């Protein structure tokens, strides 16, 4: 198996000098390529903090995170931005598409930041939006799309940079049931057919049921880490 994330003994403490809050406690995490993993736990259990650390958006107070062989723990801010651009795809709860760009331009934007040639960008944008079932909405701006459609564009954007893995923070929280299932179908298909690694935090039982691995966090620590055989 091919290791994508190797997190050793990571902790995150907020306000260490006043009233310390231990958001993440001594977490060891090993993620292989092609996993479809759910990070679950009650509010305040440290899911988002852990995702931020794994995604290079935050630094752990102690421990280290190695992604695809690169220890990102001590990378400077600018190097981390560059690392994220080429290695990690993000899907946010509130979609976070660029409102002034069309679906096509939102997906193309990431490749533009990577300086991908125009021809290649055009081909990949069409392929990705086809894959998420939005070939008829390419030239539509986010405000004219439903929540589910916006989140599908966000998934296409996350895939555009050809990342090592995709981090999704509560991707279905703002979606109705039908849209949530549709999104999960797309993510599962990408995982299955393209071996894309997904790690997502969620409260949603329907989402948890689709994951092949479920990591439960309680008070910043891993309470359980179980493999599920029943997937999509």
């Amino acid at each position, binding site marked *: 198996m091919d290791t994508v994330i190797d997190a050793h003994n990571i902790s995150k403490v907020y306000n260490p000098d006043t009233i310390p809050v231990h958001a993440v406690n001594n977490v060891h995490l090993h993620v292989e390529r092609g996993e479809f993993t759910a990070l679950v736990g009650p509010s305040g259990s440290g899911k988002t903090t852990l995702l931020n650390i794994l995604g290079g958006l935050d630094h752990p107070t102690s421990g280290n995170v190695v992604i695809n062989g690169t220890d990102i723990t001590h990378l400077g*801010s600018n190097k981390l931005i560059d690392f994220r651009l080429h290695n990690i795809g993000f899907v*946010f709860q509130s979609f976070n598409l660029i409102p002034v760009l069309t679906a096509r331009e939102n997906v193309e934007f*990431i490749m533009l930041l990577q300086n991908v040639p125009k021809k290649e960008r055009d081909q990949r944008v069409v392929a990705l939006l086809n894959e998420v079932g939005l070939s008829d909405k390419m030239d539509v701006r986010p405000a004219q799309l439903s929540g589910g459609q916006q989140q599908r564009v966000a998934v296409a954007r996350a895939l555009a940079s050809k990342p090592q893995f995709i981090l999704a923070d509560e991707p279905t929280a703002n979606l109705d049931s039908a849209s949530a299932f549709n999104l999960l179908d797309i993510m599962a298909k990408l995982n299955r057919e393209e071996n894309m690694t997904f790690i997502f935090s969620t409260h949603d039982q329907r989402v948890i049921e689709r994951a092949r691995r479920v990591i439960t966090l309680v008070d910043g620590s891993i309470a359980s880490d179980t493999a599920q055989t029943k997937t999509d």
Partner: protein
Amino acid sequence: MLFKLAWRNLWRNRSRTLITMASVFFAVLLAIFTMSLQKGVWDNLTKNVVSFYSGYVQIHLNGYWNEQILDNSFAFTDSLNQAILQQPHITAATPRLESFALASGGQITKGSMVAGIDPEKEHIVTALKNKLTRGSFLQLNDQTVLLAEGLAKKLQLDVHDTVVLLGQGYHGSTAAGKYSIKGLVKFASPEINETMVYLPLPEAQNLYSAPNMLTSVVISLDNPQNLNAVVGNLKKALGSRYEIMPWQEMMPEIEQLIKTKEGSAQIILAVLYLLVSFGIFGTLLMMTAERRYEFGMLMAIGMKRRRLAGVVFIESMLVTITGCMAAVLAGIPLVNYLHQHPIRFTGQMAKVYEDFGFEPVLPAMFSMEVILTQTAIVSFIALLLALYPLLHVYRLNETEAMKR
């Protein structure tokens, strides 16, 4: 794409963009308007003052200004006249022979300044004909005089009365003559109004036994802004035998007054720039705060600070350039209109101006230099202020920024 993103971002919040553009627009327009009006007023003041008597430039024999006697006069030859008139930007040159004399009317005598003039040329430079209040204007071959009203009053003389002039002529000769008063002229300056006597130039040269001699040539310009160029050209053309004096050297007190007033005007302009800066900065501050989350998200998905700062800077540039261009397009006809149709005082204020011999107007100077300078200053301020969102981007922590 980055330019497209910046352009579309501008119109995402139409009101905010229009407010910022309006801040820049009104700032530039106000600065152009204020500066053009100030420059116009100073220019007009100078024009009024120099047209009292001195003209913009005078040519004397070297040393005359420090020792104003007839022995420091010079012969006015055709070649000298040609050398002067050949210079660019000179529209007229009027010769004068000036000296002092005692003016007497009956039992009363008073010191006076006698100016021998070419009446028609003098009118071109100092609009002397317009100052005539009684009688008629001089002709070059007359043997009569024009008296300033104040002097005539002191001597208790009127038109057609006789005035006696007594003074010292060229090389110590005696100058004495008696002349019929052809007309009275009125000057706003009391000093000039109580001393001036005008004679036709040939008659003055005859009185002072100084045939074909002059003490000064007064120069008229096509545009006061060419003053320095004309002085420089004349110095080169005429050499060191002559002193070429701009009005600032002849009337340093007026130049000092204008400089003082300009200083206070600069303070007013600085306050205007400051107010404008706060206006623009306020909108930038609002924009930066509103878009904090968005900046954080863009950095999270991999947009480098340099690129993000570039987009924000392009946005600021577009707002500034559009505001400035609109202001220049509006400013040119506005200033041109005020230049052609100056603001006119009425009532008491107009009377005060007229009593000083000034036209009661506030003209604007139409100068592309003023317009472009003010535009450049406000643009520079706006672009300097645009560094704030850039600084914000460079200091932003994406994780903190994305916390709602």
